[in-house]
């Protein structure tokens, strides 16, 4: 039945492409989470009136974040080709997509982290300071736990954007479902392959959203 509807779909190839997409998304989400939180924390802490208030550092990070957030992803991949080649020795394959995915998503996520941190009640930070907390304690025990629901829902949105980015990266040779849909589906006029790849991507997106929502709700005790 399903083979009749999708006559041209080779399931082993489809599965392989799905794993590639999941791999690219997974690694880049983890890296984006870490780098985004570091950048977001720096943006937050160096802002006016905060613990590490420093207009210079704040402006630099802010400019960096804004620049990379504004470059369209497809152009970013091309721009990063030299760096990717230098780092990985190739520009083909799933790993080759990772630098562009992370550089594209981390600044985007960093802004969400910053917004999440700004929503923390200033009084709570003041209370921690009044107890004699070090800045590192404030970061680990106040800022991150108190903003965790925002951080998780932010990374959910970012992860979904990353699934889309992997598909774009796929078109220029990174592998994954985007690559399959483009090469096997579009270029060979096998629309059933494109459709199947799309369905799988949708399922991945729905699952990410579901997991994100569940975790956010579990964390949020407000």
């Amino acid at each position, binding site marked *: 039945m399903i083979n009749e509807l999708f006559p041209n779909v080779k399931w082993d190839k489809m599965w392989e492409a799905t794993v590639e997409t999941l791999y690219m998304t997974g690694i880049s989400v983890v890296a984006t989470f870490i780098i985004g939180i570091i950048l977001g924390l720096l943006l937050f802490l160096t802002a006016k009136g905060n613990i590490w208030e420093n207009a210079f550092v704040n402006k630099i990070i802010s400019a960096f974040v804004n620049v990379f957030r504004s470059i369209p992803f497809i152009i970013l991949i091309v721009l990063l080709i030299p760096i990717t080649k230098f780092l990985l020795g190739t520009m083909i394959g799933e790993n080759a997509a990772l630098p562009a995915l992370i550089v594209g998503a981390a600044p985007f996520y960093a802004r969400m982290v910053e917004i999440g941190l700004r929503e923390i*009640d200033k*009084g*709570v930070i*003041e*209370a*921690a*300071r*009044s*107890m*004699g*907390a*070090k800045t590192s*304690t404030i970061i680990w*025990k*106040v800022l991150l*736990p*108190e903003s*965790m629901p925002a951080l998780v829902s932010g990374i959910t949105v970012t992860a979904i954007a990353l699934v889309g980015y992997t598909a774009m990266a796929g078109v220029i040779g990174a592998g994954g479902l985007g690559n399959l849909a483009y090469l096997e589906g579009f270029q060979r006029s096998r629309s059933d392959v494109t459709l199947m790849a799309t369905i799988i991507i949708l399922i991945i997106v729905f699952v990410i959203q579901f997991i994100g929502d569940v975790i956010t709700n579990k*964390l949020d*005790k*407000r």
Partner: protein
Amino acid sequence: MISIQNVKKVYSSLKGKVVAVDDVSMEINAGEIFGVIGYSGAGKSTLIRMLNGLEIPTAGSVTVADKQVSQIKGQELRKARQEISMIFQHFNLLWSRTVRENIAFPLEIAGIPKNIRLKRVDELIKLVGLEGREDAYPSQLSGGQKQRVGIARALANNPKVLLCDEATSALDPQTTDSILELLVDINKRLGLTIVLITHEMHVIRKICHRVAVMEDGKVVETGKVLEVFKNPQQKITKRFVSQVTEPEETKETIEHLLERYPQGTVIQLGFVGESAEQPLITNLIRNFEVTVNILQGKISQTQNGSYGTLFIHIDGEASETSKAIDFITSQQVGVEVIKHDK
């Protein structure tokens, strides 16, 4: 315990300089409950934050428990802060932690090992009366319970000084009273020095030993609470005192009384300290040929004695009445004859 010397705090903003605290000096003794009252913008918030180094004075010095808080920095300041804890108007609990975990937070900061931490938290929960709520999150607590968590958290590291930043201003009157009672209780039991800032004279009356009145960054009046109630000097102090001594409806009540008692005299008596505890009315009736009718009264306790106001109606021969009034005056009771308007 606390010594504030010629402290000044100036903020520079785009519109120019704002003097939040202007040359304030005061001494607060160990074991004392000291209140600072003022309207918002009077500088009391800035003042109390200089006591734990959350604000650094522009000039002057602040010494708390032998540490010059206005000078020390880094590790030394953080150590000092563990001995000067603070509770807040909006409680400032971490919503992501349970009651138990919130109270354990300052102990974690101080590096207390887990087993000792748990024991200490249980003691504190008992002290503030939150048994059974250990695993609740702040969002599941009432305002009063949240402030109890705040107090337990503040007491965790056995501080020498407790700073209260409008600690009851977000609570209803009944809850306010129960939190104030808790503060008095821990002041007595632990010998803790408490400094509180508020805009409610009720809070000062109920628990403070001494009070400072702040206006425009300056301390305009300081003294024992009862003295300030008996004899307020500044206009602003009088206004604060009247918050407690004169309920809002007093004026209406008086007019009503005058209408109802066209005969005789209506008198307002003001009792302070010792005189509030004497059997004045009994003496009045025994010694003079007058009838005495108690119309309305209010006696309140402060930490250093009681004071009160009482409206009575005296009827009798004019000469007896005036003798009676002279007698009351001789008893060191404030007397004011309420006149008919007509």
